[in-house]
């Protein structure tokens, strides 16, 4: 089993590891401690102190915060329970006409706004563009990943988390609350 220096993994993440060393990582059997090293690197790069349970994206993390599992941006902005699509707690900017799409796509590049809209999800804390969706009107936002964290930690990593949470999608519960408050 290969093992790589944390410093090299950091360079790989930043896209600055020289190609021969990158190739070495690609070709070698995978290092079994990668997840822990990755978490360690990410933990050093975020502004918050809570323990990262899972890097959901390079910018968003599921963290353990006072017994709850919430999604946080690198900047520390809290998006709430990881079982609710974090996009519901995000800022959104939607391009659904030629004027706004034309800021990105010019002339022949322009998609048809009656077929598609471009949704930009922005972190309220730092202004990072976290995801972009191109979908027709009517499509709910993708809930990209609902992890089974307890299975992962207990059965795959062999070190159960101190508490256990049912892995169920709670997005529609939030929507129901919004709907009731209409």
């Amino acid at each position, binding site marked *: 089993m290969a093992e790589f220096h944390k410093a090299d993994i950091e360079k790989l993440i930043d896209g600055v590891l020289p190609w021969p060393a990158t190739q070495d990582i690609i070709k070698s059997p995978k290092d079994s401690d990668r997840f822990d090293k990755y978490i360690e690197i990410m933990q050093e790069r975020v502004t918050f102190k809570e323990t990262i349970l899972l890097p959901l994206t390079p910018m968003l993390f599921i963290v353990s915060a006072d017994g709850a599992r919430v999604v946080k941006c690198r900047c520390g902005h809290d998006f709430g329970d990881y079982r609710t699509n974090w996009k519901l707690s995000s800022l959104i900017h939607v391009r659904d006409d030629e004027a706004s799409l034309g800021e990105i796509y010019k*002339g022949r590049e322009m998609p048809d706004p*009656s077929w598609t809209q471009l949704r930009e999800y922005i972190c309220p804390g730092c202004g990072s563009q976290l995801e972009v969706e191109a979908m027709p009107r009517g499509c709910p936002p993708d809930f*990209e990943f609902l*992890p089974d964290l307890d299975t992962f930690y207990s059965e795959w990593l062999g070190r159960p988390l101190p508490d256990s949470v049912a892995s169920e999608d709670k997005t529609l519960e939030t929507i129901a609350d*919004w709907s009731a408050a209409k």
Partner: protein
Amino acid sequence: MSEPSLKEQLAAYEALFEKTGHLYGYESLARKESDPGTYEAVWHILSNICNAAWSVGCMASTSPVAAEGGDALWALHTPTGDAICVSRGITAHPGLLADMIKNFIRLGYEDHPGFENGDIFENNDPHYGGIHTPDFDMCMPIRYKGKLVAWASSVTHVNDVGMAQPGSIGFLNPNVFADGLTFSMEKVGESDRYYPWYDLRIRSRTRTPDYVLGDARGRLAGCITIRERLFEVIEKYGLDFILDASKEYVEDSRRYAVSRVRTQAIPGRIRKSQFKDLAMKGKRVLDPSQDIDCLFNLPMEMTVNADATVKLSLRGASGTVPFGQNISPTALKSGLLNGYSHIVGFDMFNSGPTASWEVEMPPSGSWANPFEKDFFASSGVAWAPAVIWMSSLYEVFGRLFQMRGFVEEMAAGAATTMTAEFAGQTQLGMYLASLTLEQASNGSPARGYADGENSAWCIYTPNADFGSAEVIEGYLPIMYLGRNIEPDSGGYGQFRGGLGHTAVWMIYGTTGIDYQCGCAGMRSKVLPNHGMYGAYPTWPDRPSYAHDTNLKELIDAQKPLIHERGPAEDPTITRIITARQMEDAAIAPFITPEPLQNYDVILHPVSGAQSMGDPITRDPISIEEDLNKGWTSRRVAEEIHGLVVKQESERDFIVDVAASEKRRQQIRAERIAKAVPFKEWWAVERTKIEARENMDEAVLHMWRTSMELSPSYGEELLAFWALPDDFVF
């Protein structure tokens, strides 16, 4: 006691897998454990045999598609059909070939007509597992000292199969009756020779019979190569070893796929929506029912189970279309091996990984399961929606690999596949209908640590190759005026997708030829994907052409010609060319309204792939390099990447890094000021949905069919927007 029939063996293996979770019930890999060196060596020998078959087969083939494009594949199978190893070539096919052999076994062909050395069996019928009729799937049993010990198989994509429209990308076929010549699970030859009727039928029912028959001989030559070489391997290593090891390679590969998921991914539910347009309203079609625009819903939901197996669902897939873009569940599942092999299980590429995943039966009546409700639906280019759905695996697994820290395994979204096919008289005075294979060389997806590669990747083959321009010019009445990297064609992100290229062709040497800009997985009305991790997706596929042009006058006057597309708002074609008929940004796919003539011009773009990451986090020096190579524009650098740029000369840009950092901070603040809380947008958006505001009929029809065919999907959609239960789009 006599040996069980192949049908009995197949059933026994399925029962053993059900019982043990291991293929063939192999809870240990005895040959591998006792003699790992020989096990590994024989694997490579068998792989090389398949690659030798590819070389022989392509050399013996005659069509440009096989001989120059290499759109073909050869494989070696166990007696019960599992692919053991495969050649280079089109990796979408091993699953189809394995299923075809199993179908021959299940249908009782072992009893009648029997399986003998030299027998040739074929299928290209989508109703029985074929993907589309131009892909001729073939297999030959291999008997050694009387015992059936293996199968050789092959597929080639032929130039023309007698579809209603010339060529092989049958997106225009309104129904199965336009799909052309079919061989429906047939024995087409024996003693290493095709029957005389095979030759006669192809001559009377296809437009380019010499090419089609040449490719048939190529398939045969490759399969015979596999058989004869396999005999040598058996003589050297012994039959028992080969029979045992062959099955172990397949189980080994299944284990690899499962262990890779377990050690490099995360259990849970992952979702990714995808959409694909097919806008044909007002265009040249074959049937009045086709004067419509369509949008496909291609949702992927993948569950990674606790045991590291994977379940895939197409819940929400939209309905069938009156075009050749419907696919059978069998072909869909087989084709899935292509994507899975790219991203998960590629240590030993064979049937093994198919046992590590399950595909839920797609909704009946959807594009992915058409025949129960529309038995005569066409599959002329069934691959088109399937490949887009399957391409979601890149991003889906890319996200999982990132979460586990395996950044080097990540990939953003795939490129698109827009084909160029010509039909008409060539410069040699003969009729030809043929693909150019130009599309087999996209940009590759952005990686987690670097940009994608330019023009070096293709989703359906690991051997991306757009063929030699000079060779293509020999087959077809076209001349290359350009073949250029297309700036900014890889989306905009921290790491950009590999860039695509644009071929610029001048028609020359014909009395008239149709240009069919085909859909084998492209998008022209909608953006081709989401933007992973905040990147902007690439633009839609929009080719250009000009008919009845002034190009000859320009040549005679030695004036500048057209060699590239130019900026989106100042296209070269409209600046340099005058023509009676011109489309700068045609909505694809289409067939030119009139046959093109000499000196007509086509600009055929082959897409780049998707980016990943927020564009204002892209390394300024990488952008400076792109600017100086002409791979990005100053507008994109400034307005999308947030750079402050000085231009010293045409190819001498300098980025002011400090000023750019300030500008990027400003952009972050502007974004926050401009965006609204999701809840606020949701409240307004749901009223627009309820009013069907600015929603094309193609969008509304897609939602109607998706919700009707998958009621639970519909219920979730209505609940998300808090729409009434009886709401219909």
